[in-house]
């Protein structure tokens, strides 16, 4: 009974959505509302107005920066939700953690990881700092740092890994993305503009391009650091939970 009702509901919903798709503006038509209303200005003026060569970065950090501020808050919120459900370790508890389930990995793997991780981190910095001129940016760079932490932690264990990134640093930087946005936003107010104005009206026009670029990079670095710390903290909380579950 329940299954039939759910199937019927899903079928009805699918029919409704297909009906809409059939009636939507044709895909890729240059006369579409999506292609004629807001987009042209972004494509034509973004480089000049936001001083970023990468139009996507210009849109997500500048034109619609407030949305992105909300999105990085969602990422931070995901971490807070994980810590609310799993609980955060007591201060300093995790550094003395004994890994029970540690599989002793071979010297080859350990050496390779030790060799690779610095290069992965270097690449993530490149991705973060070049976000305003090429594909990439804070989100991608942060995810790469998080990935390197996952690799390092699976090979060297939680205790070793959390000595490298102690709770003190994680707790301070988990919200770096939101802090970066707030800082740039508040500076915009002080510079005589609105919240999240990158080009301060009170600054001489000649200085504005470099000001905007530096503020954009500041935001990118915040997003990268914050994202990396959020991923690391989620990883640590989950491993810890797993260890507790297997220990008991």
């Amino acid at each position, binding site marked *: 009974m329940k299954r039939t009702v759910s199937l019927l509901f899903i079928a009805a919903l699918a029919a409704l959505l297909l009906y809409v798709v059939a009636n939507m503006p044709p895909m890729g038509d240059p006369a579409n509302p999506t292609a004629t209303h807001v987009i042209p200005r972004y494509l034509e003026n973004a480089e000049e107005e936001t001083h970023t060569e990468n139009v996507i970065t210009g849109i997500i950090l500048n034109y619609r920066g407030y949305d992105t501020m909300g999105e990085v808050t969602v990422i931070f919120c995901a971490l807070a939700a994980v*810590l609310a459900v799993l609980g955060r370790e007591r201060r300093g508890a995790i550094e003395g953690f004994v890994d029970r389930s540690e599989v002793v990995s071979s010297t080859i793997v350990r050496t390779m990881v030790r060799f690779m991780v610095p290069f992965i981190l270097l690449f993530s910095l490149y991705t973060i700092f070049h976000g305003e001129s090429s594909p990439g940016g804070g989100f991608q760079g942060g995810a790469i740092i998080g990935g390197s932490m996952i690799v390092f932690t699976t090979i060297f264990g939680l205790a070793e890994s959390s000595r490298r990134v102690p709770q003190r640093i994680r707790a301070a930087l988990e919200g770096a993305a939101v802090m970066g946005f707030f800082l740039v936003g508040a500076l915009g107010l002080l510079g005589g503009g609105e919240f999240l104005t990158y080009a301060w009206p009170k600054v001489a026009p000649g200085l504005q391009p470099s000001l905007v670029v530096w503020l954009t990079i500041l935001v990118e670095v915040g997003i990268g650091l914050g994202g990396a710390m959020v991923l690391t903290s989620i990883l640590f909380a989950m491993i810890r939970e797993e260890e507790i579950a297997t220990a008991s």
Partner: protein
Amino acid sequence: MGAWRHFPILMITVPLLGAVLLPFLGYLRESWVPHVALLPLGFSTVLGFLLLGRIPSDGYLSYHLGGWEPPHGIEIRVDYVGLFLMLAICGITLLALVFSRHYISKEVSRGRRTAYFVLFLLMSGAMLGFAATGDIFNLFVFMEILALSSYALVAITGNRNAVRAAFKYVLMGAPSSIMVLLAIGFLYSATGSLNMADLAQRIAESGYTEVLTVSYILFVIGFGVKAALFPLHMWLPDAHSIAPSPISALLSGLLVEVSAFALLRITFSVFPRGAADLIGGTADAVGVAAAAAVLYGGIMAILQKDLKMMIAYSTISHIGYIFLGLTAFTAEGLTGAVYHMLDHGLAKACLFLCAGNFIYVKGYRRIEELKGAWRQMPWTCFAFALASISVIGIPPTAGFISKWYLILGNVRGEKWLYACVLLIGSILAAVYCFRVIYYMFFQAGREGAWEDSWNDAPPSMLTPVWMLSLGTLFFGIFSYLVIPSLLKAAAFLL
């Protein structure tokens, strides 16, 4: 315009900033977190009160983020109704936060307390952003913060039932978020815009009627789940009754209201009068669902044995009230709906916090266990009685004023049946509320269930409870300060 035009954005972002700074404070001094968490919300509340009187009832404050004029940039648009709701959010979240400090020390384990306050601030900031935004995608972003933090706060005690309730909430909440996102996508594909005011114009000119109609239906389903509109309410009773009481107060007193407010925005600011043929049928269906909600919630509330369950079902009933006010499509109905968001928020938050007091002091959850409670906890019992009177809608409380306008609005809209349903809903409310009051004051409890001397909850828990219940009285007696402006603002929206 002076510096005050920056106030709404600061009201929204300062709690978010506070939330991201708290983990480090939690690392250094965990015991300071509950106190420091008050600062950002207090700051927002002060700014909110400073905004009073600056926004005319037939106008709005438009703030262009980053200096980009809409539709290219994001707009914050605070009108009189929006400011009214933002002040209600500030006040209720602040009181619930004051209440939390003692209560949390009993229900939430140590490693999770910082996360509790972080999520609390995120939720408050997101609600403020949600109420103020003039951009439809921005609405979605804040809805996500709101949803994610509320799932986690339901589960925060970590016991099996709480996790199960939270999971049920996620299972219903996540698809509803996707529906809202799809609806926004459809709107964008048909109009090319995300700004609400701009959308209103472009919808009137757009030829894609099918896309727009389905988009509205998806909005109704999506926000209907978030607002727990019958029959999409299944997650609410468990989640609201199992969450820690201050969180129940927020979920029941604010979250469902702001979701209803989002649908109000979509209905009146995005799909304007000219699009009545697009949304007419759906709006009628919402009216039927809302009327069913009033009756279903009321009857289920009477049948409950658990106090918090009863209050949760009462919320389902009252969400029906708010939606009936919206679907009346009259200024009176809209005024009643918005005023009901405020007084239901105050009264429900108060009832849940009272239930929290009983749990904190005695660990009692069942209604039967409250027999004779007033001998030991008179302050809590009297506050509970006062808030109940507002829930029923007896003058001079605010509940009476809002129900009056809701019924008046439905009569003006010639929806006689709904007016009757609203009256019956009040009778049902009287039944379930008076039963509890009767048990508290006029029945002798089990031997030894209650002490004979006064031993109520600590002052930091009683003060919020009393401020909320006196708030219902204040907004009942001094409703003339707000109602005329609300009527004008509602007429402006229509």
